[in-house]
């Protein structure tokens, strides 16, 4: 947050996209379906609370996160077993009260813990990366009225990078869907 330098000040603001506000959950969901069906891909929705059916209306596919978690878990299990086999059963054999050098029952707790640890790290880091966190700034934040997205406003943004985006056409389209107001968002 420093003073604008010559380089940033000189850059002309680009259109990032359009932000449309809706009054109700129903209007938001109905509009999202139309936006999805019109072939837009770079659009998003903002609401003050989780909405059942939002994913379906936006056409969001099942998250790939479970695969990351499963991969993390499998890595943890393999690492746990390998670590114990290598240290106790191969590299430094040490007989403890007549137990086998490498006994599977004794190895399960650490294997289990490492499975859980890496699976949850997979979920945690995967979620951050997939959501592009940490993200301290987003172009829609300074938009007029957007603060209402945390109380009673429902918004749809359509980005200019979307191939189907057209500064005039998309605005008319959103207005026709019943948007209360459509605002241009600059980057």
């Amino acid at each position, binding site marked *: 947050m420093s003073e604008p330098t010559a380089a940033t000040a000189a850059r002309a603001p680009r259109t990032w996209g359009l932000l449309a506000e809706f009054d109700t959950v129903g209007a938001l969901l109905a509009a999202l379906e139309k936006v999805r069906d019109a072939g837009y891909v770079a659009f998003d929705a903002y609401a003050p609370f*989780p909405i*059942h*059916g939002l994913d379906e209306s936006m056409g969001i596919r*099942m998250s790939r996160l*479970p695969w990351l978690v*499963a991969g993390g878990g499998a890595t943890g299990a393999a690492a746990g077993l390998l670590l114990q086999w290598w240290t106790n059963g191969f590299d430094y054999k040490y007989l403890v009260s*007549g*137990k086998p050098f490498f*006994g599977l*029952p*004794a190895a*399960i*707790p650490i294997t289990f813990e490492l499975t859980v640890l890496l699976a949850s790290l997979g979920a945690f880091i995967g979620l951050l990366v997939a959501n592009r966190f940490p993200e301290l700034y987003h172009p829609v934040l300074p938009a007029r009225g957007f603060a209402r997205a945390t109380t009673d406003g429902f918004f749809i943004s359509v980005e200019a990078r979307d191939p189907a985006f057209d500064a005039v056409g998309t605005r008319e389209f959103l207005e026709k869907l019943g948007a209360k107001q459509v605002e241009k968002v600059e980057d």
Partner: protein
Amino acid sequence: MERTTDIFAEKRHLGALGERLWRRLALAGTAALLVSVAIAALGAESWRRFFFAYLVNFAFVLSLALGALYFVLLHHLTHSGWSVVVRRVGEALTAALPLLALLFIPVLLGLKELYPWSQTAVAAADHVVHGKAAYLNVPFFVVRWAVYLAAWIVTGRFYFRRSLLQDSSGDTSLTLQMERRAGPAMVLFGITLTFASIDLVMSLDPRWFSTIFGVYYFAGSVVGIYALLTAVLFALQGSGFLRNAVTVEHYHDLGKLLFGFVVFWAYIGFSQYMLIWYANIPEETGWLAHRQENGWGWVGLLLVFGHFLIPFVALLSRAPKRRPRLLAAVAVWMLAMHWVDVYWLVTPAVSPGSPLPRLVDLTLLVALGSLLLAGAAYAVRGRSLVPERDPRLEESLAFENA
């Protein structure tokens, strides 16, 4: 609000089917019980094996009824919303507890055959068993079981009757009453179930002990009840009941809980196994050693794979839990595995030489299984299959997994 009207328009009373169902199940159960008695009376099977087979199946159906009691208590304890539409089936199963108290009598009749500690000669000759005589003796056993059964019946009736009362009065203070008692009732349930499992199953080998045994039996019961609820709801929907009230979202939650308790069961089972394996003390290892000899090891492996690894993989992802037919198939499989688990706990005491089930094991499964379901069907005949004026009914009907 529109979905409420849906459930009032659909079939939610068993009606004439309920009458037919409980009569037929009671008839089938009684007939199978008589056949089992005949098998032993005609000498085709020893009475000793008969009583052990009876114990396997009694412990099995009891675990399901107790699992149902746990499910109802948990619902109220956590102020659950989602499970309102499936709660009545659980309540009906707890209503079979008085019948199970009656069916406990044969266990008392077979006490001398089942429990070595009940024979004074054995107790006198064995130093370890003698030392436990203050707890493991016949009069105290009978008194304890009278207390357990009374506690379960009273708790079950308290919840079932108030739930039925609310169907007609719609009084929401009943819900508050039920929720307020749920905490103490759950404590009572935990204590009685723990001691009951020690008495009924663990004391078959009076020299052996495992401090986690009660939790192991509990884990099995909860796996059993979520499997049974899923299977019963699927069967009811197949016969045209509750088609609107119970949705894929409820199956999804039952599937999640079933998955969770499948893992919990494995966790407890392994915790018991590993400590015994690691300490390697003869008084503890004997119990597991019997279960690794003469083919019993295969039953143990069947449990490792069939009761844990296979259902773990089958239920891991979201999709199978949202396919009622597939989930119901897994549920039936889990019920079978739960039976194998109880069989594995009990039968090595009478048949250390062979894990193969005998005919009485199966006829008594039909007998006690049918009687449990008959008791449940009898309890809900002429009643709604959903608590239709529960204050959280709307929440349950509109429930969605985010």
